[in-house]
């Protein structure tokens, strides 16, 4: 795998305006990989991107491209291209001239430029827009022009800084698919920054979950979802019930006053742990058959399933089922061994409680991140 490393970030630290944005971060990116940096605002994901692009210098650490240090190489000499959050299209140039910008700098012949611009326009389905002013395009179209402009210079790496953040949901879904398609077809390494976990899971080969200037977990989307390393990752990716537990022995864990069989090993005897149970993995049964019993406090219809908040001994669980259980009903719950994931205690333990204040949390999450200047 080692020779496959295209970009290598080694022990990077960055301070910006008095705050430590990245702390001793190391990360490598493989060739032709779709890697996503995922985390809440201020976690250092955009800073990482700007370091790779060359807009920012690390205070400590080194950046290697194909094994060579590029720490002191200016942005215009690096083989990377950025898709900016707000596209950064040149307003004084039309669509075709925007795409040709990088090619003209490379002193390509007129015929070659025209050919590449044409290719790029058809790649992003904007054939008939060549002569349009960029200001006359919709957000989605501007986004496509930005992608075409970046790919026209044939970079080895494309850096995407929340590129779909300003688009509406439907368009965002379409663009996700399209970006993935483009990435496969062009064979370009994508480094994608987002705070949208669903976007990260559905598009990436590798997800890097970041918080507080540190990498919390690196893995495939499935790994990240099924085997979160700590409470932060479990909470940030999808919905999770995170409860305190104790490991009795290998494959035996105790939480919520009950003993459960699980698949996790390698913990000390009676080690206190965080236990994650995903809302969709819980099986609802009759109260007397359940390992746990609880009372439904709210029930929301979500289309595919019902989302219930269930009070189990004072701790509020989120449970998703396809069957309807009225508010106030007492239900039994069964958690099969593979539904339980045990994590070591971390600095994040206890920070993510139950779903007591769920409504507010949910409101905050579904509030689209506002971009100034839009």
């Amino acid at each position: 795998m080692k020779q496959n490393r295209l970009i290598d970030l080694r022990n990077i630290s960055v301070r910006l305006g008095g705050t430590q944005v990245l702390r001793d971060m190391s990360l490598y990116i493989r060739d032709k990989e779709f890697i996503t940096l995922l985390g809440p605002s201020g976690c250092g994901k955009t800073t990482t991107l700007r370091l790779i692009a060359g807009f920012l210098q690390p205070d400590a650490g080194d950046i290697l491209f194909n094994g060579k240090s590029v720490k002191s190489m200016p942005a215009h000499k690096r083989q990377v291209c950025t898709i900016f959050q707000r596209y950064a299209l040149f307003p004084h140039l039309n669509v075709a001239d925007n795409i040709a910008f990088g090619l003209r700098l490379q002193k390509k012949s007129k015929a070659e430029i025209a050919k590449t611009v044409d290719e790029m326009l058809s790649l992003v389905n904007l054939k008939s827009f060549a002569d349009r002013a960029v200001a006359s395009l919709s957000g989605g179209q501007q986004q496509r022009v930005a992608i075409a402009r970046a790919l026209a210079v044939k970079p080895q790496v494309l850096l995407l800084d929340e590129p779909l953040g300003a688009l509406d949901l439907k368009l965002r879904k379409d663009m996700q698919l399209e970006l993935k398609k483009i990435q496969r077809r062009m064979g370009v390494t994508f480094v994608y920054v987002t705070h949208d976990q669903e976007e990260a899971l559905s598009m990436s080969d590798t997800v890097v979950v970041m918080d507080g200037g540190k990498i919390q977990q690196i893995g495939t989307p499935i790994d990240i979802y099924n085997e979160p390393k700590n409470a932060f990752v479990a909470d940030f990716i999808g919905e999770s019930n995170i409860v305190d537990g104790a490991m009795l022995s290998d494959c035996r864990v105790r939480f919520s006053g009950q003993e459960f069989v699980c698949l996790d090993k390698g913990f000390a005897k009676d080690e206190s742990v965080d236990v994650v149970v995903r809302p969709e993995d819980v099986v609802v049964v009759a109260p007397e058959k359940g390992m746990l019993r609880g009372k439904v406090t709210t029930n929301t219809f979500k289309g595919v399933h019902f989302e219930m908040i269930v009070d189990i001994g004072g701790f509020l669980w989120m449970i998703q089922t396809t069957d309807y259980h009225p508010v106030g009903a007492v239900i039994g719950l069964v958690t099969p061994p593979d539904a339980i994931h045990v994590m070591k205690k971390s600095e994040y333990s206890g920070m993510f409680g139950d779903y007591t204040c769920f409504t507010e949390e949910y409101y905050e999450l579904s509030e689209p991140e506002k971009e100034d200047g839009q």
Partner: protein
Amino acid sequence: MRTLSDTARRMLSAPYLVWSILFIVAPMIFVAYYAFTDKSGAFSLANIQALPDYANVFGRSVWYSVIATLICFIIAYPLALCLAGMRENTQRTLIMLIMLPMWMSFLIRTYAWLCLLQDNGIINGWLEKIHLSSLHMINTPGAVILGMVYNYLPYMIVPLYNVLSKVDKSLLEASHDLGANGAQSLLRVTLPLSLPGIASGITMVFVPSISTFYISQKMSTGNISMIGDVIEQQFQSYYNYNMGAAISLVLMIAILVSMMVMRRFTDNNGEVVV
């Protein structure tokens, strides 16, 4: 409701309309009237026919103003570029310092230059002290142009600074990202995006330069006259309102044409059309 608000709106613009008619349109009509009449008020083309006599003064005015405008641009553009890149507080302070001389009457500022540049002025005094031969500076075209550059430079800096400080930094990053070095980014992104500022800066320096009279009088001690001086003479010394009006008319047309040319570079939103 609608008609009322329409009337109200019309009422609001009335004072401005009256003002414009009284102090802008009417004087222009008077200028045109005087230009085409003789002293008795009868229609006459004599003034217009006499205009070619002033062709060389006019040519000199245009030439000096073009040079002064160019020098202003060469000084102001890099300065505005630096300013726009500074921290906001520094920007504000420096802009205030640039505007500061304008708090003083420009008569006084021009006199100050006179004191500096005279044959037995301050600069020559210093030169003598360090045993260098004195320079003849006053009374030269250079002195006149210096006076214009000095007085009108802020009018070039401010509009340039305004557009340059609004250029989206991410556009420059995008340009670097696509392979442009500093000079290429300046030429291909910053410069085209600052065209509206360049156009208004040029207008704001060129127009007062071409019609100036006081600066040229003082800096050349009356030896180099510009078209503004000639107009002033016609009104003040010869009491030939008609001739003065005819020259003014030509100047006005020249300014109007140059402003229309400049406007081609900006549309209503101040955005570049090119």
